[in-house]
């Protein structure tokens, strides 16, 4: 365990930035935090979480995959990848750290997504424990410990000091390069962890149960008559899917860049009317079906294929952002039977 004083955090970040480019949550002009590239004078936000999730670093909203140039009958395919350098994402919360594991199980299984993989290998994650979680937080329901988040390095921030613990070789390598971190015992961190656990127990969603979901529940839940009420006022926008750290669907398209064709991919949303549109049309014709797809995917299909791990991390962004305040917690409480009453 290492530590530095709170007022020294900027000089520590400056040193880390010498080893690899640092991104951290910074308050914007609207007072909301977003990940930005570190620079002298940028302050680490006090916000609990960023408006957009940290998945952007590994799975950006849009990315160009390749370019094509045609000359006569020849087509030249140009690899335009440029991810060569390590980078550090500082200040990632436990929920978002877990989201990377969930994305890995999609992008790093055969056929491996080499674009995602390259960024994942170059990324070093410094997580931070949650000193002041929100009423919308429910990471505990998915077994995430907000007092002790995963990542290459874990950081705890108290009033006076910032504590650093490396969890991986990558993390240890990085911390070794930083001067100004002093060794310390674990007493202060243990105290902070206990404090956070106490808060987690007091959260309004602390007892949210996943008991009625997971592998094997498809037949039971798919035809529930509750989907109608739940999806009744859904606008069909993509807010929940785009602020979600684990939503992983994308579309691949091409555009004419003038001198050639660029193939790009962008996030897609199961809430959209043309999602997974095929030559025979869209398989989910109503908003009820599209709405159901999103929650069944997170709570049933994903765990079915991934050793029981749920496709939600309880970050609460959809709770805060849905225009009609419909969200996975309301779905779980409505469908979840007596455990969630």
């Amino acid at each position, binding site marked *: 365990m290492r530590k530095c004083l709170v007022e020294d955090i900027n000089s520590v970040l400056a040193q880390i930035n010498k080893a690899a480019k640092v991104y951290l949550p910074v308050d914007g002009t609207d007072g909301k935090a977003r990940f930005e590239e570190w620079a002298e004078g940028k302050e680490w936000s006090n916000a609990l979480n960023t408006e957009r999730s940290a998945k952007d670093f590994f799975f950006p909203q849009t990315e160009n995959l390749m370019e094509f140039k045609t000359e006569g009958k020849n087509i030249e395919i140009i690899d335009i990848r440029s991810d060569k350098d390590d980078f550090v994402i500082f200040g990632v919360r436990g929920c978002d750290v877990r989201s990377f594991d969930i994305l890995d199980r999609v992008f790093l299984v055969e056929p491996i997504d080499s674009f995602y993989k390259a960024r994942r290998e170059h990324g070093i994650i410094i997580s931070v424990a949650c000193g002041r979680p929100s009423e919308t937080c429910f990471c505990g329901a998915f077994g995430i410990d907000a007092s002790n988040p995963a990542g290459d390095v874990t950081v705890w921030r108290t009033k006076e000091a910032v504590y650093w613990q490396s969890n991986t070789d990558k993390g240890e390598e990085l911390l070794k390069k930083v001067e100004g971190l002093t060794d310390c015992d674990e007493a202060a961190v243990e105290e902070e962890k206990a404090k956070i656990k106490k808060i987690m127990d007091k959260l309004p969603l602390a007892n949210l149960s996943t008991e009625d979901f997971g592998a094997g529940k498809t037949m039971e839940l798919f035809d529930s008559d509750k989907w109608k009420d739940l999806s009744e006022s859904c606008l069909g926008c993509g807010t929940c899917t785009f602020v979600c750290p684990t939503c992983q669907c994308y579309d691949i398209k091409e555009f004419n860049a003038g001198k050639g064709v660029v193939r790009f991919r962008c996030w897609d949303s199961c809430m959209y009317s*043309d999602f997974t549109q095929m030559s025979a049309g869209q398989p989910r014709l109503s908003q009820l079906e599209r709405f159901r797809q999103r929650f069944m995917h997170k709570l049933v299909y994903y765990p079915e294929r991934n050793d029981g791990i749920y496709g939600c991390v309880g970050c609460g962004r959809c*709770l805060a952002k849905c225009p009609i305040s419909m969200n996975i917690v309301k779905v779980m409480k409505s469908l979840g039977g007596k455990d969630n009453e």
Partner: protein
Amino acid sequence: MQKITLESLVEKAVSLLENGTVTSVLGWKKGEFDYDITPAVFESADELKKDFVWNDFCGANFSKYLVSKTCKSEGKILVFLKPCDTYSFNQLLTEHRFDREKVYAVGIPCEGMADINKVKEVVGDGISKIESNGDDLVVTTIYEDAPVKVTCKDVLAERCVNCKSKRHVAYDELLGEEGEVIASERFDEVERLEKMTPEERFAFWQNELSKCIRCNACRDVCPACTCEKCVFDNPNSGVENKAASNSFEEKMFHIIRAFHVAGRCTDCGECSRVCPQNIPLHLLNRKFIKDINEFYGEYQAGAEVGLRAPLVDYTLEDLEPGEVFDRRDNNA
């Protein structure tokens, strides 16, 4: 803060259901917390008594739901309309977007809605309860032993700070007292933008619109956006894009949308309320409203059913296009 009580709304809804005037009720449904309220259709007195809610967070404008609800339903639907919602209601009727015969509209007074983000700026996260007490909201959090008092006025949503009317322009029945059209200061921010140099204004919008995640929430909530198939959702249109392929497109989406709703936007403010990136989208629409007022005389979309909007009308007094061109020199 709201003068009309939850009990009186539930009582009205139950009596209209029971006497057969309506078969369903479009209202606000209780959430997990006191601020996360979902629009819902209620079909029984029991449902209404259990889950119906009316408080300072019932901001959602129900008018647009009438397009799909009246299309499907056999019976009449009761809809509660705040003054600003009634303008959207009229505008949709003007555009023949829903069946008036299938709606029973109850106008309800509104003292302005609170913005939970503003509440959180004062009290922080961890809210476990919000109660209304006179002019205050009493907020309990898991972090403080004593509840924190917040003055409603300080946490009003932007659109309510600049409320343009407390008068209902449509209803079958009115509960509570009728209000007046207000001389609001809603164009102040537009004027501030007009005074900027073109470069400053471009930078302002670039900063705001670059935050856009193309979730389409602004479009999907907008009562003026009721095309059955939006051009941006049509893979055959050639302009469909789930993400901007460059920064220019980002701006184009919102500017095209603003043009499309020009003269039809009632300034209900739903676009900015729902934006997950806090982009002040209503300012684009307000600029159009302000220009229309200045070019063709005061015009409020939705003030009456059947109004002919200046942009689809012609009078001899209409401004010459050249005059618009000349305004460029004034940075406006």
